[in-house]
């Protein structure tokens, strides 16, 4: 039962990756609008898009958003010294960028195959498409790998310190970069062995046609931008 449900979502429910790319760009302009209504609509739309990907992630982001919002309200009501002012500015910036973060998260959670096919539809060079999809794939893993590096550091008695940024950078990033290099060799062999270099016509496992939801989303995004420009 649940199997057929998830299949239907894959085929019908989600936005096309190119729509998400376009919305990311549109939202980059929209979040800096001074119209609170437009910001509110943009923010709500971004949460809805994230909800269509994953309810759990959406709730997590919502809680985080509420937390930052609470901090901002609190800071706005206490004395406005330089330090509190700086933190207030930071909190407001995070809140402003939140819609982009939501769309970006939705994009990262999109199937790599869908993104890869979308890039093929744009006739982008294969090396660029492979690079981008691989980078998105590694985003998930980087946190896990950093956690392991941190464990390795603890065992050897090394600690991250803001007072020694270069050393801290070296401790975290040397193993991480080498790990990525090692993985990339196998990964390249694997995708070559899976026929990535085949020059004939390619197909997609998913239905990659633009759907009604894509049209509506893009129309709404452009319309909001139009309103933002008009009212500014």
């Amino acid at each position, binding site marked *: 039962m649940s199997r057929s449900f998830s299949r239907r979502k894959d085929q019908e429910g989600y936005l096309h990756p190119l729509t998400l790319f376009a919305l990311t760009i549109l939202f980059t302009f929209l979040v800096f609008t001074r119209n609170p209504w437009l910001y509110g609509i943009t923010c709500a739309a971004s949460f809805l898009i994230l909800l269509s990907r994953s309810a759990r992630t959406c709730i997590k982001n919502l809680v985080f958003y509420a937390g930052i919002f609470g901090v901002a309200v609190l800071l706005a009501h206490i004395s406005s010294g330089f330090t509190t002012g700086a933190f207030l500015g930071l909190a407001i910036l995070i809140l402003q960028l939140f819609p982009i973060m939501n769309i970006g998260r939705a994009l990262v959670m999109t199937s790599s*195959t869908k993104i890869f096919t979308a890039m093929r539809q744009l006739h982008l060079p294969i090396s660029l498409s492979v690079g981008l999809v691989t980078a998105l794939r590694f985003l998930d893993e980087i946190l896990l790998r950093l956690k392991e590096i941190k464990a*390795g550091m*603890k*065992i050897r008695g090394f600690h991250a310190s803001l007072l020694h940024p270069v050393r801290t950078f070296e401790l975290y990033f040397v193993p991480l970069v080498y790990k990525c290099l090692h993985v990339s060799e196998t*990964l390249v062999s694997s995708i070559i*062995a899976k*026929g990535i270099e*085949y020059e*004939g016509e390619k197909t997609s*496992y998913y239905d990659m046609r633009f759907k009604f939801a894509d049209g509506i989303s893009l129309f709404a995004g452009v319309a909001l931008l139009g309103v933002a420009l008009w009212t500014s």
Partner: protein
Amino acid sequence: MDIMKVNIERFTYQGAEKSSLHAIHFAIAPGKLVVLTGNSGCGKTTLTRVMNGLIPDQYEGTLDGKVTLLDQNLHDFKTGTLAKVIGNVFQNPSDQFFTRKAEDEVALVGENLGMPQAELRKRVKKAFEYMSIAHLMDKNLNELSGGEKQRVAIASTLVYDTKIIFFDEPSASLDQEGIRDLQGILKLLKASGRTIIIAEHRLYFLEDLYDKLYVMKDGTFIKEFDAGELKSSDCKDLGLRAIDFSALVPHNTTKTGERVFSAKDVHVSVGKKELISNLSFDLHSDEIMGIVGTNGIGKSSLGRVLCGLAGKKQDISWGKTQRERLKNSYYMMQDVDYQLFFDTVENEALANGKKISDAYLAEVSWIIKHIDLWNKRSEHPQNLSGGQKQRLALANAFLSEKQILILDEPTSGLDYMHMDKIAELIFELAKGRPTLIITHDIELLLKVCQTVLLIKQDGYEKLDLQTAEYHKLISYFEQMMK
């Protein structure tokens, strides 16, 4: 008719002075299972790369010779189309995945080669069902166990009617149960008529499966065996991993000293799930104790609790709190890449918390020579081979002044020679400090351990390998393969 004919006079990687392969001539009949074995660097991976077409597509070099597949020169196949005939399963399944979702990974080959969507969906489903992992189709690959990942990797070779499947050290990242599953899968694939070529160190799980086994050394075949011909004595003579366990005997006859540490009622949990409860054991001076257990029982998690990376408060004599245990114990991680931070082997060994003095410099020099890395002391540790990195990580463990050492799978993926080298090092350097070894390498266990803590679903027992109890360990491993 042979499915593949290999005639290689010589192959040299671009920029290399010495050839990696020479004088290799053999043919493979359809449906046969062929094993290529030999110590690391003998050329078996290079040979599989020539046979699966990755040389010269990905790895450049000069090939004097020819490989034919279905009577057609391998390099006459249209770019990318070899994927329809040849499947590949690489050493570490996690590293070979391009996507994050299991079904996407399996579908990738069909998408690349233009299989119509409806047909592709049907074949992907069938491949998952064939590997008995239909329930994993929509799972994130990061959430799967090593064995499950390997099944997904194999499923991705079944979307097309693949004639040959290459496996590069498929047992390297698997535990005992995973290896038994792999054995079952290989039987299944063989029964389906597929030709299977495996480059592998571990041989015991292939004993009843191989039709031909080639032993390689210095880039060529030095010996070949037909089905069932390879005996334990051959393995000993040729320096290979054991083909069966029955001939193995314990080697460490050193008597342990007095009790120095104890752990009482240790609890190990991952998230809310309790894996191990009420585990108690004593450790004696000079004791090397193996820790063995079934898949998912929590051996590595136990290692993390014992060294203080997890587990908060525990009744452990070398540290009740995590902080105390971290201070007093050293944990060599399964993937040692996460424990190497510096720019040279020398600096890596020097950075073990001691003040630089003439005596310490002499100690570090001695140990670098002893682990056979003196000529590589100026090289970047991350550029070393797997076995070399494991030796360096081991040297770091021994250079630390910790009272107790915990080594997690120190010989995973190593051939007999390198396993033997690690065993020797542990045996020599562990003197005076209790050492725990979490492993499913029975050859290592019997070479260095005096005792083994055997953890099962229904409890645990500590075996004394210096008595007839070692038979229990061998029976346990034999039982696991049934």
